[in-house]
């Protein structure tokens, strides 16, 4: 079973491949404001997380997500719900 920390590390790894430049992603990185990705690109990134973790992420579950940590908590919560 994935832990919150491992999910967060996976998100940082996958998101890092999307971000141009040498921005060091952390748990506190604001996904839209800091990475240069627009809101649609972030929603498309969620598809990768769905494939990676075998879950579905409903739109309302990510509508308030801003940071990498919040996204990790949401994804981890969905993994637990589907376990």
């Amino acid at each position, binding site marked *: 079973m994935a832990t919150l920390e491992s999910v967060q590390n996976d998100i940082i790894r996958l998101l890092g491949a999307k971000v141009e430049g040498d921005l060091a992603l952390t748990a506190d990185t604001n996904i839209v404001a800091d990475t240069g990705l*627009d*809101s*649609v*690109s972030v*929603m*498309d990134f*969620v*598809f990768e997380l769905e494939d990676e973790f075998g*879950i*579905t992420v*409903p*739109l*309302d579950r990510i509508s308030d997500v801003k940071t990498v940590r919040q996204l990790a908590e949401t994804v981890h919560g969905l993994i637990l719900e*589907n376990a």
Partner: protein
Amino acid sequence: MSIEEKAQAVQKAFGALKALGRDPTRLEFEEVISPTEAMLEGRRTILLGTNNYLGMTFDADCVAEAKAAIDRFGTGTTGSRIANGTYGLHKALEARVASFYGKKCAVVFSTGYAANLGSISALAQQGDYLLIDADSHASIYDACKLSSAEVIRFRHNDPEDLARKLARLEGKPGDKLVVTEGIYSMLGDTAPLKEIAEVKRRYGAYLMVDEAHSLGTLGALGRGLCEQADVEAECDFIVGTFSKSVGTVGGFCVSDHEGVEILRSISRPYMFTASLPPAVIAAARQSFDQIEARPDLREQLWRNARTFYDGLEALGFDLGPEVSPVVAVKLPGKETAVRFWNALIENGVYTNIAIPPSTPNALSLLRSSISAAHTREQIADALDVFARVGAEMELIPANKADRRRLAAPQGALRIVTGGATGRADAEPAATPRSEKAAVKR
């Protein structure tokens, strides 16, 4: 955040792009000459961004019906459908839309936006699931916000991703409503409806197809992609708009499920807005007669679309994936798109600009919509302008633009009146050039 701070944020996001030229939200057409030409900034301009696929806005019979309806019923209903805003005209149009599709029920809304908002939000409720294509129109996304259902995106035109998501919902109570479109408005690509219908059948879901850009443009009878893909029986709800091929304004939801009538009692965008005015209703009804009876318009539309798509491709532009009445040119960034869009206008060609986040995959696009009413000369002139401007901006190889210029007859740059108004006797490709139209850009 104060209103001033919100304004500053918008200025920060779009100010630099607007500073490169015109503000797309503030363009004014001083006069509309035909379905395919208007006066813009005092210049006679070819319209390649109106979604007027069949040229119905100037159809003589539609105009006559609209005028007669004003004389008989007045200019507006001054009320909502649930109050004083339902006339015999509205019921007759609903019956006509239903008969056009061969379905039992149709509900008419005041815009296409409202049709999606009102249908989706009312049909999918608390405890239900909405599964929408990632590239859905804003009206579908906004409908999801108005609905209490759980909203799930699936990858654009990907039945396998849809199937994975429906499989994860197996055993969960609640209806599952899959929402897709016929032709997608940004790139002009079509949905794999046969495969999507098979998935929805396998998992016992409902299917709604938004035929906004495919009504009138696809299918032997012009019913859209559901007809063309032979999945009409599988499609539970079709929504669409009157503001494209139909040539007026308004929207609808049509279905064999008699339960769709609940929209009249619970759909807020149906209930709490003014109903369509008589002239619009009358023109729309006449337009459905034309769409059904005139396959020649669809044939002309697709000839024009093929000519324009092939012409741009030969010039070296990067285009959407398939020939379509929507022809999208992909450009290497927002600034280039804005500059190209402005330059086309200055050379008498109007297109739609689309930039992220309104576009899929962060693409910057110039989107053209083709009409059956475009003349052969207008298509050729527009291609000439794309070639010249594209070469000047170094977006295409100069030799390809030169090849087109050398192949054109002497003095080829001209504008020709778009005379076709959807009448059988007005073959666009053979429309004579009028003296009034011979304006040098």
